[in-house]
């Protein structure tokens, strides 16, 4: 689903956020991406979303080489990917329903289809009763769940999350992670960037660790670990 092949990202200021990163995420996998802040997690996600382009190396998403993707096709790529942000990126001038409906409006669903899918997504995250409320009236955990509903409403095959539990207490964080596991169980490939090691090491999934922009070998604890892309 996601292939990184010796990807480096150097910013114009000279800072190298990623160096020679290679890994492969299979379809239906749930993978955690971890590392200290500044290790390159966000940059890695941005490369998948084409918010940034790599300086060297190749990124493949769903078999598509992003290097060959023209700027005019970026929206189509992003429609295939659901994204959850640490700061939710909700629009505070419209209701919960309208926030979740945004990707469907972009994709051009009919009104009835939109209503059905938005309610299904809100039901999934347990916020069906709040559809008419404004996001500002929701708690941090609820806002994050609205963000998740928006990410999955278009039934993407790939779900990215950037520190989705960053501002939440442990109990809420565990709930959110459970949601991601549920999506993964129905066939969605999930990549979650998180530095909450205590939480993610309890969950039995592969962990990719970045340090200073480089991938480091799988941990000695035997849980998951990276499988560097074999190069022949």
């Amino acid at each position: 689903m996601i292939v990184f092949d010796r990807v480096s990202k150097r910013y114009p200021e000279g800072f190298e956020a990623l160096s020679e990163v290679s890994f492969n995420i299979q379809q239906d996998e749930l993978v955690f991406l971890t590392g200290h802040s500044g290790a390159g997690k966000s940059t890695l996600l941005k490369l998948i979303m084409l918010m940034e382009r790599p300086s060297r190396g190749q990124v493949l998403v769903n078999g598509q080489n992003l290097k060959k993707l023209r700027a005019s096709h970026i929206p189509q790529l992003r429609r295939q990917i659901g994204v959850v942000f640490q700061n939710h990126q909700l629009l505070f001038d419209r209701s919960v329903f309208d926030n979740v409906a945004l990707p469907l409006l972009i994709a051009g669903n009919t009104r009835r289809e939109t209503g059905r899918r938005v309610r299904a997504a809100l039901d999934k995250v347990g916020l069906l009763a709040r559809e008419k409320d404004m996001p500002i009236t929701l708690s941090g955990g609820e806002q994050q769940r609205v963000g998740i509903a928006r990410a999955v409403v278009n039934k993407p095959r790939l779900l990215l999350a950037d520190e989705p539990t960053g501002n939440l207490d442990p109990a809420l964080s565990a709930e959110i992670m459970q949601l991601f596991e549920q999506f993964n169980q129905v066939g969605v490939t999930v990549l979650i960037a998180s530095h909450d090691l205590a939480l993610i090491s309890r969950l039995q999934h592969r962990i990719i660790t970045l340090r200073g922009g480089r991938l480091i070998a799988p941990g000695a604890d035997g849980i998951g670990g990276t499988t560097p892309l074999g190069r022949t």
Partner: protein
Amino acid sequence: MAMGASQSKTRLADRLRSWQLHHRVSARDSLLRLLHSPISSLMTWLVIGIAMAMPVGLTVALENASSVSMGWDSPAQVSLFLRAEMSLDAAAQLQQRVERRPDVHSARLISREEALREFQQLSGFGDVLESLDSNPLPNLVLVTPRQARLQAAEAAALQASLLREPGVERAVLDMEWVQRLNALMKLSQRAVWALGLILAMGVLLVIGNTIRLAIENRRDEILVVKLVGGSDAFVRRPFLYTGFWYGLGGACLAWLVVALALWWLHGPLSALALLYQSEFDLQGLGLVGGLRLLALGGTLGLLGAWLAVARHLTVIQPR
């Protein structure tokens, strides 16, 4: 193969439908957004409306003026002033003789008494005329040529030949001043066009700037929309509609302003026309002219929005 074809056809239909849906949604939402802040929207509409009303109003005025001058211009007239010692009978004979000429359409005799009465009534110099001992006005024959529009040379030939009729003191061709008026009118039309162009640029800039502010205000929304896969066209659409509504609303106000101004001028103008014995009636924009004005306003709005969107929207990219 057939499967693929039918699938892509459905997808095309879907895309067309969703495209239409978003157009509807954008059109409605952007209008509602404008109505949501009525005062500031009204201000923008007024600026656009006034800027458009100026050249439009002047154009209407010019068209009215040219319709008046057209009435005077064709056919050209030759006024024959008869010698003072000529009797009214002799004048009538002259009038009949002239009217029989093949190159003359009609000739009308205005006796010196008639002329005096008319002059007293209409000129406002009644008192002055009454203080005179005798009527200073000569008998007059107004000659209308057969051809509606005479070339300058033909008109001059007719004038010369009429001057040779016995008893005619002077033959005056009423054309030179009409030509001057027409030249003046053409100049004014050019001036109005220039003014119109300048004000249209002003309207473009006003709308462009308003849209630029709208884009700044909705920066967060644009970022999120781009992040979840909104295309440039999708992001652009609401702003283009906003510009369109600004232009259209401004044009509506311009129409209103012009109509009000015409209504206000109508009374005094028809009194003036009466003084000149003219059947002149003030012509407004009319339905077609009004619709054209609306189309122009909408187009200007769209163009102004496009300028702003092209410059400012591509800069906003999620980082």
